């Protein structure tokens, strides 16, 4: 058990190193010179040279990388050129917003997608199954920006139940916070809900045909116990693993949703940073997201390990 965890963590390290190189390299692909952007209209050559020196833009790329990594390892993600704020502070300010959004979305997806998958597998080829499949297909195929706009139209403009945009910190007012977040979380969850439903359905269908479910029935167990204990316990294993990876997907999916609902999260931060060539912010955000993703993958493996007795040897 312990050796497995240690081995799994060690495997993550080269991945993170690779990610950091890619993240650092990304800025080289972005068009434009940040020193020029900073120097403003006048383009004073002396100022430009000074700016290049301050931000190490005059150094060879590998040295720029090492300086950056060195700083990152000390917890210094650099400073936003535009906002004149440490990137670390920006990240800690915006990350909870996106995490709340993604967590709410995964919660909705779990509470809706998994029961829907179970029902459609148990009631295979009935109206319930077809209905659930239509919902899932819509969840995957309806673009989130469209769904978002339609929901704003319905719930904000026509019914006036929910605010169309904006964000209230949970520390200020939890009910206001939930009011602003529920629509974005729902929009963000739509694809994941559909994926959960489809995976739960196919896993349940396979398990319900299995010999051990027949054994459970041969024991005289009642159907709810057969389904929820004997079948679901096995069918849920791949879905749980998928869930951890989906949470990472949701973090990146939040970019678009945050734009639609103007929520000041990670997504908005990175979009603004890219448009302003605010490299330090882009790097910081992408590095945090990628590391988070790797961490969630690690969690997925560990969860798989915990819920699957065969893995424990």
């Amino acid at each position, binding site marked *: 058990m312990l050796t497995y965890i240690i081995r799994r963590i060690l495997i993550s390290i080269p991945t993170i190193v690779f990610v950091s190189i890619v993240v650092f390299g990304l800025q080289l692909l972005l068009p434009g010179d940040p020193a020029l952007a900073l120097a403003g209209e006048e383009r004073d050559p002396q100022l430009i040279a000074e700016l290049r020196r301050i931000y190490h833009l005059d150094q060879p790329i590998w040295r720029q990388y090492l300086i950056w990594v060195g700083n990152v390892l000390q917890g210094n993600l650099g400073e936003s050129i535009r906002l004149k704020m440490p990137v670390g502070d920006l990240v800690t300010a915006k990350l909870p917003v996106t995490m709340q959004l993604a967590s709410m979305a995964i919660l909705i997806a779990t509470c809706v997608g998994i029961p829907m998958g179970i029902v459609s597998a148990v009631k295979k080829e009935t109206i319930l199954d077809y209905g659930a499949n239509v919902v899932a297909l819509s969840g995957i195929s309806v673009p989130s920006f469209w769904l978002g706009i339609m929901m704003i139209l319905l719930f904000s403009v026509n019914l006036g139940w929910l605010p169309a945009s904006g964000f209230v910190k949970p520390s200020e007012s939890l009910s206001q916070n939930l009011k602003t977040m529920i629509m974005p979380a729902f929009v963000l969850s739509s694809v994941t809900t559909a994926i959960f439903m489809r995976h739960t359905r196919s896993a349940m269908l396979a398990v319900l045909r299995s010999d*051990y479910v027949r054994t459970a029935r*041969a024991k005289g167990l009642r159907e709810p116990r057969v389904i929820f204990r*004997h079948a679901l316990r096995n069918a849920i294993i791949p879905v749980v693993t998928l869930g951890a990876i989906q949470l990472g997907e949701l973090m990146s999916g939040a970019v678009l949703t945050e734009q639609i609902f103007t929520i000041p999260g990670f997504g908005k931060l990175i979009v603004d940073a890219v448009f302003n060539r605010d490299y330090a912010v882009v790097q910081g955000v992408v590095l945090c997201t990628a590391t988070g993703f790797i961490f969630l993958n690690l969690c997925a493996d560990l969860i798989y390990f915990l819920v699957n007795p065969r893995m424990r040897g």
Partner: protein
Amino acid sequence: MSASLLAVGALSTEFKTDQGRFRAVDEVSFSLEKGRTLGIVGESGCGKSVTALSIMGLVPSPPGYIVGGSIRFEGEELIGLTTERYQSLRGNRMGMIFQEPMTSLNPAFTVGDQIGEAIIRHEQVSQAESKRRTIELLRRVRIPSPEKRYDDYPHKLSGGMRQRAMIAMALSCSPDLLIADEPTTALDVTIQAQILELLAELRAETGMAIMLITHDLGVIAEMADEVVVMYAGRVIERAPAAALFASPQHPYTIGLMGSIPRLDLEQDRLAAIEGQVPNLVSLPKGCRFRARCPFAVAACAESDPPLIEVAAGHEAACLRAPLEVA
């Protein structure tokens, strides 16, 4: 017949497939007395497993449906029984073990948990009592160090041990009937013998009846009191085991035994039965075995022969029975 533990009469089970409906079990009748062993023999696809699942009420539906007949167990009609009542019989008065011990136990729960679950379900005993009884059952099916095995997950057990665990589960509430569907087919030969021996011992100890399904006549010879031979969904021969082996009457049974009595028509020895089981979706008219039968005559194409008594307690569904050695 009223004393029979299990009386199956004209049982028919159909499956709906994309190719059409077919009758996996076609008017099958037999009975089984308390404490006896009935062997059901036939090649794969002959309907023997579906017969067993029909009795247990476990035919997957859709696509399978029992379309006719009767199954009386301890005098109670099982066809049309409420789900609740059926569930209280299964695993309690009738237990079943399956061909695949490797996949028949749930990988997510310990062996002890899965056996104890049946006891708690039917006898409402405490957790501690169910554990005590489960360990006792594991000991009875000769699983070494049962206290330790109780907490093992199925993947830690060998195929033979898993089949023993399955037997323990099926026997947990001392059923009157144990249906064993190819219990040894997936096991090594040496383990096969051990499992059969165990079943025989347990039958002697408990007085339960066993319905043993197999394609292996050797297993039948060793275990069964009476034998039902099935072919393409029908019973084609039914006899006490000794009589069946002494003078098999249906050409298919003879073929299964790998030998043919000398007849004036046919001199060759038949090592294997030539040809294929007919497609159940589009059965030919007449006897289902006709195309593969070395004794077939023109009349065999006319109608499917019913079971007729060829000797006391010995029935065969063949126009030419009794086949007399010339």
